[in-house]
């Protein structure tokens, strides 16, 4: 669109890609989000210092914060998102439930008002008894699974309330929570919307995001394999009705649960761009970020309704995290020492990761969004498998091995999953690694390790420069914090062959 950009960064993001690619950049504070990316005053000052006209809030941090949107407006800046009033209304999960009911859209049974931050646990426990277990504790200001806890028995309620409140407070600055019944084997179906300031609201073909781990979306796809054209017409109209009833004028997403009988329930609205927006872009050809900027400038939507509702082919996204799937998906921050990203036909990788870059411990460990398009679902799945096979990250652990395994699961291929499917599947596992190397691969790994030791130990320099395997630097880097324990390295030292 030919717009100049200004990046903001915390200390540890000084050399991040978004900083280097921007026209201007502005330091806004230390690493802790509360001291930088959540500092409304500094963000507004950054815009004023750089002469920016508008702020795009991305999809994290303050993207759903009405005070931030209001502060932009007060400072004469365009907030590329909905109005503060829309954010406040739909950002409150309980008010949003009310809005959906008012628009004639069914909601999941739960508490209709949030609990005060200091509400006694006994009061919450009574409400929980009324709704029935299993239930979910959710943050009123929540999103992305943060501040959410599943409680299956009364004994766990107290600890879950504590964790949810604390996490909600850290993530959103608001510890308020509410309760919601947990449906049996529901699917997560959501509808992307675009609204403009002229009263137009345009729904897009639905996305299915049922592959979740601990309420975090892991794989998204569009269209949903189980949504018929009739259901699509029904659910997208319902979504548009909710958005229209609140005068919504930006990109947003309404999330539904679809039960086994095909009934859908309003879950919540995300008043921002979603992480998973690329797959909608792939099947419709509509640039959602461009559309957001256009409507924020007061322009009318220029997308044909049938274009938005008629998917061309099928698209899938895998959220690749810096987590070690073989260690219970524990975060794996650190330096990326090697990175090769798949490319080629119908593959899109949205990533800020680079070889040599540090994945900090302070933020969400999402390092890449890998998307694949195909003429139909099997083709999209096949291309995603190929892309995952070509993806290589060294230095940190990532969820790539998990996705390679996941895309081989029969239930994934048959699309017979629900929002609890992945957690159940993971619980059945006996601790075996996600990737079990073939006999062949093990043998090659053994030969490669032996080859490296052989060439390193060979005092006769019979190795050509081309074939020389220089690993001493790595070995030395290692040594500083981790004593070498391996026999051949000890041997090398003993024999005085080490450089």
């Amino acid at each position, binding site marked *: 669109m030919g717009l100049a950009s200004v990046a903001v960064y915390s200390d540890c993001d000084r050399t991040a890609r978004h900083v280097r690619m921007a026209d201007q950049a502005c330091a806004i504070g230390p690493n802790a989000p509360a001291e930088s990316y959540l500092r409304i005053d500094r963000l507004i000052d950054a815009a004023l210092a750089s002469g920016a006209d508008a702020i795009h809030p991305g999809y994290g941090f303050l993207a759903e914060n009405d005070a931030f949107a209001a502060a932009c407006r007060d400072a004469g800046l365009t907030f590329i998102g909905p109005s503060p009033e829309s954010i406040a209304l739909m950002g409150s999960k309980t008010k949003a439930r009310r809005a959906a009911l008012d628009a004639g859209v069914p909601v999941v049974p739960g508490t209709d008002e949030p609990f005060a931050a200091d509400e006694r646990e006994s009061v919450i426990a009574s409400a929980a008894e009324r709704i029935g277990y299993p239930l979910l504790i959710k943050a009123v200001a929540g999103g992305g699974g943060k501040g959410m806890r599943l409680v299956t028995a009364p004994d766990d309620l107290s600890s879950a309330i504590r964790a949810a409140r604390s996490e909600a407070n850290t993530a959103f600055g608001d510890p308020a929570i509410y309760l919601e019944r947990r449906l049996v084997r529901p699917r997560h179906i959501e509808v992307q919307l675009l609204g403009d300031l002229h009263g137009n609201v345009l729904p897009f073909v639905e996305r299915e995001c049922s592959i979740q781990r601990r309420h975090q979306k892991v794989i998204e796809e569009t269209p949903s394999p189980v949504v018929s054209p009739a259901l699509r017409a029904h659910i997208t109209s319902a979504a548009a009705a909710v958005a229209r009833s609140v005068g919504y004028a930006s990109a947003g997403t309404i999330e539904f649960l679809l039960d086994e009988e095909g009934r859908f329930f309003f879950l919540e609205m995300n008043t921002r761009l979603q992480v998973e927006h690329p797959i909608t872009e792939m099947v419709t050809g509509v640039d959602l970020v461009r559309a957001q900027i256009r409507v924020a400038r007061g322009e009318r939507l220029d997308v044909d309704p049938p274009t938005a509702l008629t998917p061309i082919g099928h698209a899938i996204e895998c959220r690749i995290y810096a987590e070690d799937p073989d260690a219970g998906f524990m975060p794996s921050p650190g330096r990326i020492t090697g990175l090769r990203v798949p490319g080629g036909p119908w593959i899109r990788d949205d990533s800020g990761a680079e070889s040599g870059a540090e994945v900090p411990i302070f933020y969400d460990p999402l390092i890449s969004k890998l998307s694949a398009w195909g003429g139909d679902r099997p083709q999209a799945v096949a291309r995603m498998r190929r892309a995952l096979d070509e993806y290589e990250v*060294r230095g940190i652990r990532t969820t790539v091995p998990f996705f390679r395994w996941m895309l081989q699961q029969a239930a994934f291929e048959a699309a017979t999953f629900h929002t609890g499917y992945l957690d159940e599947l993971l619980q059945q596992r006996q601790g075996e690694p996600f990737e079990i190397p073939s006999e062949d691969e093990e043998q090659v790994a053994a030969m490669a390790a032996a080859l490296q030791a052989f060439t390193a130990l060979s005092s006769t320099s019979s190795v050509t420069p081309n074939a020389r395997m220089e690993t001493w630097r790595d070995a030395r880097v290692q040594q500083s914090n981790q004593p070498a324990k391996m026999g051949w390295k000890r*041997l090398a030292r003993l024999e005085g062959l080490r450089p």
Partner: protein
Amino acid sequence: MTFEVETGSRKRVVQITGGAGKYQAVVDGSAYVLDVARAGENWSLLMGPVRAGSPASLSVRAGRSYEVTVGVQLGGELSVFVNRRALAVRLDALSTDLDRRRIARRAGGRGDHTADTRSGPLDVTAPMPGRIVRVLVKAGDVVAARQGVVVVEAMKMENELRSPRAGTVKEVRVGQGALVEAKTVLVVIE
């Protein structure tokens, strides 16, 4: 030169000879021809023979192709990537052509992860680098099995660390707000 190499649950004896990018490997008695060349950070490894057709009469030979990276050492293991898949490898030199003496196996290098199976005090350790959000117990507290003791935040997610068994808090080694490395002992239960 001969090595003992452990991958997964299996050990292989690998003997390597050759040089200048062309090697012979004998793995548990089976011989292979290796053609190895560096490509950026990786090696291209071609392994023969491929058994197909009647190679003797043909003008060329085919090899199985692997892209291999021998990565940094993590906790005593080499991380080897074969076709972009990570494998953990432990390696010992059995003997060398330079030195026929048998080298003793690594001694005492394996005991790192046994702490939490001891019958004495149990450590609650940080599973990842992060920040201590809250300490839920103090020294002397009696705790139940699976009772939360510390909340650690990493990458915006809070993780409640629980006591591995019922007991008494012997020691609390961290305070709220502290930044901790992975495997730092936070609380000792006895």
